């Protein structure tokens, strides 16, 4: 510090005298000064700007969650070019794409499967399936596009497996695609053409096939392959023609992945549901009219996971359905309309489900296409070629990042889909969503599951609830203690004691939260668990005992009382408090026996119908109290002790007791300061991470019960972000959670700060 050293200061001072200052030096000094002004200006401003830009950065990470998908046309070609003159649009039975969208395939009704390069439409390889005189009348593919089922005009179903034969050579991919026929099953003994097909399962285990014939019959075929001990495969199969219980004509069929449910959509707008059991006839469950004035059910498709059924109607309406548990229905389940998607202006002609998440593409008779997601109920994109030709076939790429689409004019278009966050959206984050397998719409947070079929449940509501619950119980416990302690310190305590007590409580604010969390979770929680009744008793008994102590103190002869300085009560209370606490603990067993039937935990379970969690809101409230009490205490103490002395003297001079003065004069004057204190305490409690992470079970449930755990926004971020893939939906949702926290605390603190500044001005005026 140069200021403190006189010998260096002496020559400096002389040099600073302008007369001896050379022109060059003066110039240099001015230059330096200007430079410094600029550096400090630019530097300081940019530092502050960049600190505040945190919010901006977080916002840019969140933004993509709410933006729509981008769909762009990559190429298009004529179907007959690929078919090499062997037919036109009407002759295409199926389209498909490989994982990298480099190889596509096209199946003609003559049974020729040709693979072509997507970039130019040139054929790479082809395969011919011998159908004899027959033609392919219908064809379907698995979600990943590698297993095909062909229905023929003579009642057969042919199963085909595709291998794109990808090879890597010096970082480049090359393909040698092949297709192999794995089974040829005669579905219809009458040899009618199969106009519509559905398939589920696998040839090596359970295989189910279903078809609609051109004479409006519905066929079912079940095949079970069991491997015997000796490794021989034994196949049993059954063939059923469903009894005609429907009105209208069958228009579409679907089989779920578990091979337990079969659905048929009719042209008068009903969905019929059968359950399937091996070695027994299908059991008709119910028929559901999709809406009051329905069109024909043109399409029925399962989304990935085989639970959600998407029905497309000739009116253009698209809805998603699944089975919901229902005790009143005889089967125990009821097919329920869960989501109503954005309707098409004309009839739905084709639907293709995504192999990544609960999304699909639907096409209509005017050539319009919709990209939809059921869980978030988001309409992500509308796109079309604007030619007005009806959509014939849609093939969604296995990674859901592109699609091949054939229209009635014979144009095959390759679209690129950029749809990174279909499952996001305001409704998914904050609204009640009806998830697969749930009985009603709910707020649920369950971000990751084991399989691709998992439906992410991204409701932030349980987490916000958890943050609020933790804050609520913390404040309930902390505010009385902190504010009363502050009132005592500022108004009644002996000044000599005050100068020691205040820093002690303030040091508490410096306790690392990880320490509090550890003690809360591993020390406090098991101990509280054993003595909950005693803890409840303490909250009533301790105040009573304290008042009794005050009464007793009144009875003590003045001679003895005068030996103690006034304002020492709190120290006298320390042994009394300890004694009272011990007394409550001592009574624990007796209370438990007398009021709670011997076991408090059982009592909680039976009366409140929730289990007692060892790490619960009570424990968090107490542990977080250590962090929040000193904050509220310090700020309210400052506000209370800064109330102008003149006000207090005036009140006392008018004959008010110290308590009356404290409660009628001091407290109302400093009320704003106490409000500030509570707000800042609240800000700390909302964002606290380690304590809640360690002292709660982190289960994202919504229940106000004090004996349950919860999961807060902050703990959720800490738990999930290390595992979240960068740029993925979960990653961005966690950023959204962070931004919510930022905004809540920032708003709360700003309110507190403004109130505090007002208060300061008020004190100056008084």
């Amino acid at each position: 510090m140069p200021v403190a050293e006189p010998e260096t200061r002496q020559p400096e001072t002389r040099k600073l005298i302008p007369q001896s200052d050379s022109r060059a030096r003066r110039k240099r000094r001015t230059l330096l000064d200007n430079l410094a002004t600029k550096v400090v200006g630019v530097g300081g401003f940019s530092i502050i700007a960049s600190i505040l830009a945190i919010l901006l950065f977080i916002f840019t990470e969140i933004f993509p969650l709410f933006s729509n998908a981008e769909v762009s046309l990559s190429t298009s070609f004529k179907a007959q070019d690929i078919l090499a003159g062997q037919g036109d649009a009407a002759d295409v039975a199926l389209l498909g794409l490989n994982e990298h969208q480099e190889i596509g395939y096209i199946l003609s009704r003559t049974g020729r499967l040709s693979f072509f390069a997507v970039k130019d439409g040139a054929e790479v390889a082809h395969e011919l399936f011998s159908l004899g005189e027959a033609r392919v009348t219908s064809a379907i593919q698995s979600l990943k596009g590698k297993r095909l089922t062909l229905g023929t005009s003579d009642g057969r179903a042919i199963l085909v497996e595709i291998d794109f034969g990808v090879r890597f050579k010096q970082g480049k991919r090359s393909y040698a695609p092949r297709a192999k026929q794995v089974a040829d099953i005669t579905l219809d003994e009458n040899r009618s053409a199969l106009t519509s097909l559905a398939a589920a399962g696998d040839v090596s285990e359970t295989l189910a096939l279903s078809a609609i014939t051109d004479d409006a019959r519905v066929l079912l075929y079940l095949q079970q392959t069991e491997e015997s001990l000796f490794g021989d495969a034994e196949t049993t199969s059954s063939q059923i023609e469903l009894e005609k219980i429907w009105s209208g004509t069958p228009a579409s069929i679907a089989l779920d992945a578990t091979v337990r449910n079969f659905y048929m959509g009719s042209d008068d707008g009903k969905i019929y549901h059968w359950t399937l059991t091996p070695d027994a006839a299908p059991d008709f469950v119910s028929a559901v009219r999709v809406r009051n004035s329905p069109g024909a059910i043109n399409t029925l498709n399962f989304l990935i996971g085989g639970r959600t059924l998407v029905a497309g109607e000739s009116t253009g309406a698209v809805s998603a359905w699944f089975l919901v548990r229902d005790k009143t229905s005889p089967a125990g389940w009821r097919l329920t309309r869960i989501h109503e998607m954005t309707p098409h202006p004309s009839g739905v002609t084709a639907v293709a489900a995504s192999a990544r998440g609960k999304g699909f593409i639907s096409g209509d008779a005017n050539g319009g296409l919709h990209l939809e997601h059921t869980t978030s109920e988001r309409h992500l994109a509308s796109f079309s070629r604007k030619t007005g030709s009806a959509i014939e076939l849609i093939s969604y790429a296995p990674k859901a990042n592109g699609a091949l689409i054939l229209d009635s004019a014979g144009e095959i278009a390759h679209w690129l889909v950029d749809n990174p966050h279909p499952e996001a959206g305001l409704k998914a984050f904050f609204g009640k969503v009806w998830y697969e397998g749930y009985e009603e719409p709910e707020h649920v947070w369950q971000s990751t599951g084991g399989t691709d079929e998992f439906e992410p449940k991204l409701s932030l509501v349980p987490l916000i609830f958890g943050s609020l619950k933790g804050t609520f119980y913390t404040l309930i416990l902390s505010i009385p203690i902190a504010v009363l302690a502050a009132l005592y310190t500022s108004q009644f305590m002996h000044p000599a004691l005050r100068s020691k007590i205040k820093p002690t409580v303030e040091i508490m604010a410096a306790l690392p939260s990880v320490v509090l969390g550890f003690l809360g979770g591993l020390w406090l929680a098991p101990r509280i668990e054993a003595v909950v009744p005693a803890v409840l008793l303490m909250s009533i008994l301790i105040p009573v005992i304290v008042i009794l102590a005050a009464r007793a103190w009144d009875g003590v002869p003045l001679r003895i009382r005068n030996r103690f300085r006034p304002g020492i009560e709190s120290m006298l209370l320390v042994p009394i408090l300890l004694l009272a606490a011990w007394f409550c603990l001592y009574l624990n067993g007796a209370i438990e026996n007398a009021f709670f039937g011997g076991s408090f935990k059982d009592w909680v379970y039976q009366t409140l119908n929730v289990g007692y969690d060892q790490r619960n809101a009570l424990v968090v409230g107490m542990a977080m109290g250590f962090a929040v009490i000193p904050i509220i205490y310090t700020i309210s103490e400052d506000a209370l002790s800064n109330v102008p002395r003149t006000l207090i003297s005036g009140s006392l001079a008018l004959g008010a007791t110290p308590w009356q003065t404290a409660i009628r004069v001091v407290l109302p004057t400093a009320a704003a300061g106490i409000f500030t204190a509570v707000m800042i305490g609240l800000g700390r409690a909302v964002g606290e991470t380690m304590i809640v992470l360690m002292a709660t079970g982190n289960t994202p449930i919504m229940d106000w019960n004090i004996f349950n755990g919860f999961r807060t926004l902050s703990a959720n971020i800490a738990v999930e972000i290390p595992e979240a893939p960068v740029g993925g939906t979960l990653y961005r949702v966690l950023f959204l959670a962070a931004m919510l926290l930022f905004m809540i605390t920032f708003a709360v603190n700003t309110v507190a700060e403004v109130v505090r500044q007002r208060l300061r001005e008020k004190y100056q005026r008084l």
Partner: protein
Amino acid sequence: MTQFWKSGNPFVWLTGAALAASVLMIVGLVLLILFKGLSQFWPSTLAELHLQDGSKVMGEIWDREEIPDAEPGADNASQYRLRLKVANRDLYSLDFRWIDESDIQQRLSPPPAIAIERQEWGNFYGYFVGLKKDGETVAADLVDGWPTIEASLDEMRKLRERIKEIEKSDIGDINHDLERLRLGLRKITLASDTTTAETRQLIADKRAQMADLQAEYLDKEKALADFYGSSRKIVLSMVSVDGHTIDIPVYDIVRIWKPNELSVFGKCGIYLDKLWEFVTGEPRESNTEGGIFPAIFGTVMLVIIMSIAVVPLGVLAAVYLREYARQGVWVRAIRIAVNNLAGVPSIVYGVFGLGFFIYGLGGTLDQLFFSEALPTPTFGTGGIFWASLTLALLTVPVVIVATEEGLAAVPREIREGSLALSATKFETLWRVVLPSAMPGILTGLILAVARAAGEVAPLMITGVVKLAPALPLDGTFPFLHLERKFMHLGFHIYDVGFQSPNVEAAIPMVYSTTLLLLVIVVFLNLFAIYVRNRLREKLAYSAF
């Protein structure tokens, strides 16, 4: 009675009780941590219990509690049970056992009982059988054998150091060089045309160097194998109280003592030895035993790097706000905003650090300068540098606020005096104002450090790990490894207390770590208060 209520005294006493409760809370917490944190190093006596069913158990008595009611209403109120640390994890698989007092027939503390702290499997409690060298018994009696045991302990300790040196520095260096050569090779193949004679020569050179290093590595490995062979030669035969004989290589023994024969003085010696190991040693047994030196080192390094980053940023911003910016509504708004940033949850800064520093800046750095190591990230993953910067961002509001207060406290006369002597604004700032504002800056820094030392949540997502293979500062070029992951006291508490497979055995360690962290943080806070008061007094003189 009405007089009593009217006087307001009961309410005053209630408020007093609130304060007393707060004080009790803090005192109780500190006492709890002090007791739990310090008591675990004390070598308590080994009790041998003979049970009613004829079996014997030996261990340290850790706890005594009333047996919780098995069924409500049953009269076993006066029944107690003991929590015994039986150790011998390799035999019993659990470290602790509850024993009802009613089951105990006899309680002894036999003098020849021995406690051994091992490198693996925790402690062993039992009796001495013999000391064997190459399979032959050299000592069968404990009293005679003790000097031999101590001598071989010494020998083995040296051997362990030798092995550690080879493993850590020799083989570590070779591995480091190999990795560098491999990356160099990759860089050449990535960057240049491999067909030219020059690059081919270069590649061949590197390959030859790698082959040399590999040969060297094999040599070292052979030497290591020899050492390991000799480490198994001296074996201590022990028997547990229930009759299991077990051979413990002396090499595996950390320390050995006879708890029931030790004097208080001797116990103090062991206590201090254990305490010293705790502070300076490496962790063992997935962090549940040994020391926490890497965590202390990581915490200190983190705080130092953070301080280097936070002071210039905070001071520059504060100087701008207070001295250069035009005062007005805007600056006031910014001041409130900066103030409030101190209240934004730390996890939010952690998320920002992860997104901006690690994936943003780190990912870019990797692509520009460390492309040969990709897809393994260098800076594109959590590390001490990014964690420090995140903490710096978290604490910069504290420094700004404190510095501003310091600047505001500099009397106007001093500035005007300097300006009147024709010093420029910058000269006044640099030579007069900033030195006077030093206490504010220092207070800000110390408060920032105290906050950073106790913060865990943002570190969990920016690079802290449960076990770091190497310290961020060591003898290999470039000595300071900013990209490395690190250990941290606070995270150590969380990890060992909540993620460790054997929480019960680990908890004593956590209490000690907690105590250490608490001491550091409280000390830093007190130091901040002290420095502020001290400098205030000093400046009060120099200003006039």
